[in-house]
């Protein structure tokens, strides 16, 4: 066992257990009502009891999140390639992408819900709007970051635009794209949850945010916490999965992976 193992794995887990124990102890000792603050054991119990209701909701939220992320990758990536091929396109379209990015999603979501009849589709659009910009801007930066001398070298050997894109600009953009992807992964989950909140109980799709709203109305606070735990776990799993993907793709050559070999 190395010091790194203690620092990275054992220490955070120990802190977590201590905090949970303290939480449980305070809740019991002070006799706090479960509808104000449930203890961790009750939350776990609720999670198990309500699993039949929560699991389908988790799938719906995850489905929206992952589809939105996929759409963000495809649209963000393709737009970035288009923008770097034509300055004219970039100058005329990028400002609108920025407008879309800086407008709070809770402000646009009601409009989208009105315009798009299908609830699932409108939730997807909202989550996509939140998620696609980091991929777009990071990939643009990456595509333009290819070594200037390597660009000269490609020119010297008569490489065309397509060859330069495939063999030089895309690989050079990969680390930037992946760092954008990690941000977008978390954002698409946030986007999906926020959109569900705005859609409220009116929708037919009932994801985790809907369960939180519903449980709130019924003062089922332990269930609110149980849904919250699932959302947090989803976010962590998405982040870890994308970090692993990034590590696998970059470990042999990129500077950011240097420390891991030692």
């Amino acid at each position, binding site marked *: 066992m190395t010091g790194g193992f203690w620092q990275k794995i054992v220490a955070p887990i120990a802190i977590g257990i201590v905090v949970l124990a303290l939480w449980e102890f305070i809740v019991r000792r002070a006799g706090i009502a479960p509808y104000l603050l449930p203890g961790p054991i009750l939350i776990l119990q609720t999670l198990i009891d309500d699993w039949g209701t929560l699991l389908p909701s988790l799938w719906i939220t995850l489905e929206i999140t992952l589809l939105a992320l996929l759409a963000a990758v495809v649209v963000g990536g393709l737009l970035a390639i288009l923008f770097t091929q034509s300055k004219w396109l970039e100058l005329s379209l990028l400002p609108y992408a920025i407008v879309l990015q800086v407008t709070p999603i809770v402000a646009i979501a009601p409009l989208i819900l009105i315009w798009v009849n299908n609830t699932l589709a409108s939730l997807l659009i909202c989550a996509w709007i939140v998620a696609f910009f980091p991929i777009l801007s990071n990939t643009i930066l990456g595509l333009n970051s290819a070594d200037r*001398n390597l660009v000269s070298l490609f020119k*010297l050997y008569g490489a065309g635009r397509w060859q330069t894109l495939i063999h030089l600009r895309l690989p050079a953009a990969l680390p930037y794209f992946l760092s954008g992807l990690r941000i977008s992964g978390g954002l698409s989950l946030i986007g999906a949850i926020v959109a569900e909140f705005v859609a409220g109980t009116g929708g037919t799709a009932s994801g985790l945010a809907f369960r939180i709203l519903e449980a709130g109305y019924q003062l089922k606070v332990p269930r609110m916490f149980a849904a919250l735990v699932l959302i947090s776990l989803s976010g962590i799993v998405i982040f870890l999965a994308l970090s692993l993907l990034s590590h696998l793709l970059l470990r042999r*050559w990129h500077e950011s992976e240097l420390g891991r070999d030692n």
Partner: protein
Amino acid sequence: MASRSGARPARKPRYSGTVQSGPVQASPLVRLRGVGKRYANGTEALAGLDLEVRAGEFLSLLGPSGCGKSTVLRLIAGLTDVTAGTIERRHGHDLGFVFQEATLMPWATALQNVLLPLKLKRLPSSDAAEGAAKALAAMGLEAFGNSYPRELSGGMRMRVSIARALVTEPRLLLMDEPFAALDEITRHRLNDDLLALWAERRFTVVFVTHSVFESVYLSQRVAVMSARPGRVIASIPTEAAVPRHAHFRTSRPYAEACEAVSAELQQAIAA
């Protein structure tokens, strides 16, 4: 005998040598006449530069920093255009370029990096793989084909870079201070290996450096450039057999040639 351009008074040559080279009397591979280069921001990098590169020679381009040496290389390569004067290139696109840094693609192995020029020229992949492996072996790196640039030392990366430049077997090799960032022992070894390859294949080399010693050690002829705006103020032939013998760096002809080139460089800086 040093031949000078420009209207400077002739000084007594401190060093005279005979040129030991092949058929250099043929028409030059590259000829720059009255070349000027002014960048968009108004900087005048070159003015009235005359230079001939003879087929098969090893020419060093020496000058104070910022004198436009790299610009001359980029002009010869066709990466940028003159703003005055003319440039004739007989080498077409048949050239290799080595930058100051190794400039390798970090995501590709050494072999894939060397393969790149052949791939861009759309050579059949089996021929290309064979050619790249051969070029890598010529630089002594046959065992490192699958290594990524990050896993190689600075000297080895530069070797990969040279292998990549030579993989197309070009008539003209342009090198822009390729060894400036390396330690002395590595630099000396690379100097010798480069010279051995040149002696064997006799491609034409234009080698930019700011080191008097390196220019004299490597080349048959040293062209000294003035401070910006740069022009060639002296062309000094150096005498030595290739490959250099073991004690060349401590020999008298080497010392004398270095002295002669240094004197010209002093003039260049003072001018």
